[in-house]
């Protein structure tokens, strides 16, 4: 392709290695910010724990040192607050990337990880186990939520396929399925639950990181890490969807296969997180937009940026929800919106003023 063209346009291309460097620096800064946030969040709470305590406990448990720390503090840091902060970070990162991927795949800025019936399916699964007690001892509330989420997702994909595929059909099927499973959840609660059970289920539905343990941390971290890696591997395919299916196909993307694969991936990540933390709203809807504002729409930068912003955001929101109304914990799903909306408005306004 070397036809001489004499359009007077300047020949120097303004490729910007400085931009790439900036992104790398910000991402490294993001990782540091996540680590610092986790450390700082651990010091918040009724029991007095200092950053030095946190460092000592971490070094002890990693086998790098043997510093005497009071047993109570050790338990608070290692058994309670650290797993909780790490789970919050994983959940924020996971919900963030799922939202970013869904918005790109479905070309809809209002898409979020729960669009395809996952949260309502999870809540139905949870109440069927928690209230009706079906197989409760075997699979537990989390297992029920996971199964319910995937059943709802499968129903959505089936409905979308019956309706002829296409992104708008997927969204409509998701809306229909969400309504159905919400109604089922309400029905089970009103027909069978007592006041205590209702309150417990409501709290869980709004999202909560109460009582997460190390096995929850490992589960969430592994699933989210694998998810981030796979989304990064498909970042160029996600870019290709910017102008719709036809252009994506002409750019060499196997559209149907890639979209189905990535939707299943986000469903698995979301279902795992919901089964551990409940349905935490807002993060997956709004944080990808914040990341786009700050880092642009290319997924190679957007995916890690969303993950880091989501992680930092969730760690702080969880810490604030935990201590703000002591001793009553605030459901973290309430906190995400209360803290997140003003933050998002600030980004919107500042971005508008920027040239």
């Amino acid at each position, binding site marked *: 392709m070397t036809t001489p063209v004499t359009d007077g*346009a300047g020949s120097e*291309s303004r490729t910007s290695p400085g931009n790439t460097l900036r992104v790398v620096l910000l991402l490294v800064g993001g990782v540091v910010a996540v680590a610092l946030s986790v450390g700082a969040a651990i010091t918040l709470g009724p029991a007095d724990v200092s950053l030095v305590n946190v460092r000592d406990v971490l070094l002890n448990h990693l086998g790098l040192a043997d510093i005497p720390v009071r047993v109570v503090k050790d338990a608070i840091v290692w058994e309670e607050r650290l797993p909780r902060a790490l789970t919050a970070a994983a959940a924020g990162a996971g919900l963030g990337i799922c939202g970013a991927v869904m918005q790109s795949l479905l070309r809809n800025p209002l898409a979020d990880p729960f669009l395809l019936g996952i949260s309502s399916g999870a809540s139905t699964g949870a109440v069927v186990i928690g209230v009706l007690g079906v197989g409760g001892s075997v699979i537990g509330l989390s297992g029920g939520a996971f199964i319910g989420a995937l059943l709802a997702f499968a129903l959505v994909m089936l409905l979308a396929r019956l309706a002829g595929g296409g992104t708008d059909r997927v969204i409509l099927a998701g809306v229909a399925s969400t309504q159905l499973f919400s109604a089922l959840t309400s029905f089970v609660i009103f027909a069978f639950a007592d006041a205590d059970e209702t309150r417990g289920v409501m709290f869980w539905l709004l999202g909560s990181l109460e009582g997460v343990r190390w096995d929850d941390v490992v589960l969430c971290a592994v699933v989210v890490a694998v998810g981030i890696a796979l989304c990064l591997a498909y970042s*160029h395919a996600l*870019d*290709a969807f910017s*102008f719709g299916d*036809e252009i994506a196909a002409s*750019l060499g993307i196997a559209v149907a296969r890639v979209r189905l694969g990535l939707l299943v991936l986000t469903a698995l990540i979301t279902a795992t997180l919901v089964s551990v933390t409940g349905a935490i709203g807002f993060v997956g809807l709004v944080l990808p937009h914040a990341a786009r504002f700050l880092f*642009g*729409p290319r997924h190679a930068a957007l995916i890690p940026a969303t993950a880091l912003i989501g992680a930092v955001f969730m760690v702080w929101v969880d810490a604030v929800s935990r201590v703000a109304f002591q001793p009553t914990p605030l459901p973290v799903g309430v906190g995400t919106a209360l803290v997140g909306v003003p933050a998002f408005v600030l980004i919107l306004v500042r971005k508008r003023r920027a040239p």
Partner: protein
Amino acid sequence: MTLQAERVVWHRGGALVVDDVTLRPAPGTTVGLLGPNGSGKSSLLRLLGGTAKPDSGVVTLDGAELRSLTRRDIARAVAVVSQHADTDVDIRVRDVVRLGRIPHRDSFGTASATRDEEAVAEALRHTGLTDKADQRWDTLSGGERQRAHIARALAQEPRELLLDEPTNHLDIRHQLELLSLVSRLPVTSVIALHDLNLAATFCDEVIVLERGRAVAGGSPREVLTAELIARVYGVRARVGVDDRDRLTVLFEPGPLDESAELTPEDAPRPW
């Protein structure tokens, strides 16, 4: 050997949209697909691009059946500029053009970065968009968007370029600029067009479709006759050659039945 369609038939939603069409563009030429709305131009382009599969007949790329190739193999040879390709994404022109490099990456995205940047810079230069490379998509005019799509297709470094009504919504200057750009490119181009004068000016060969069938094919001068235009488009036209030996088509409003008065086209003559 390039991209060829042999007797392709395609039913879409029960309706026959492409009916036994054969297309063998000579390498490096510009071929115009003409015909009224719904005559099957876009459908034929989708078959050629491999985003739709024919019910019978075959589309081949260098002799290999298109359905036996991967999407990426096709994308390395065939680029598409389709209609209505818009986005809400807050994307810069340079990043739109970079999309064209996707088929040249391996699965981990580690293609040669310098090669990519060269191809992108060259595509921007070809389309006169170098100065707009850092502008956002939503600030572009319709003509600039269309040129950005063509730049994206050029960055793909294709041998075949498929364009679906690329001059829609463009003013006359941009229509001329765009088609002269495309016809100068060292690639084989197949372009769906509505404007018969543009087709006559820029195409080496035209194919006229009517209800899915190819009813005429050949050089614009052979094909674009008053009779054919009356038959296919239902419009009276006067076809002539101007003082610089260019084919021109003029249209007359009004009913067809006065077509007896029209210039006999077999010998286009100056007027």
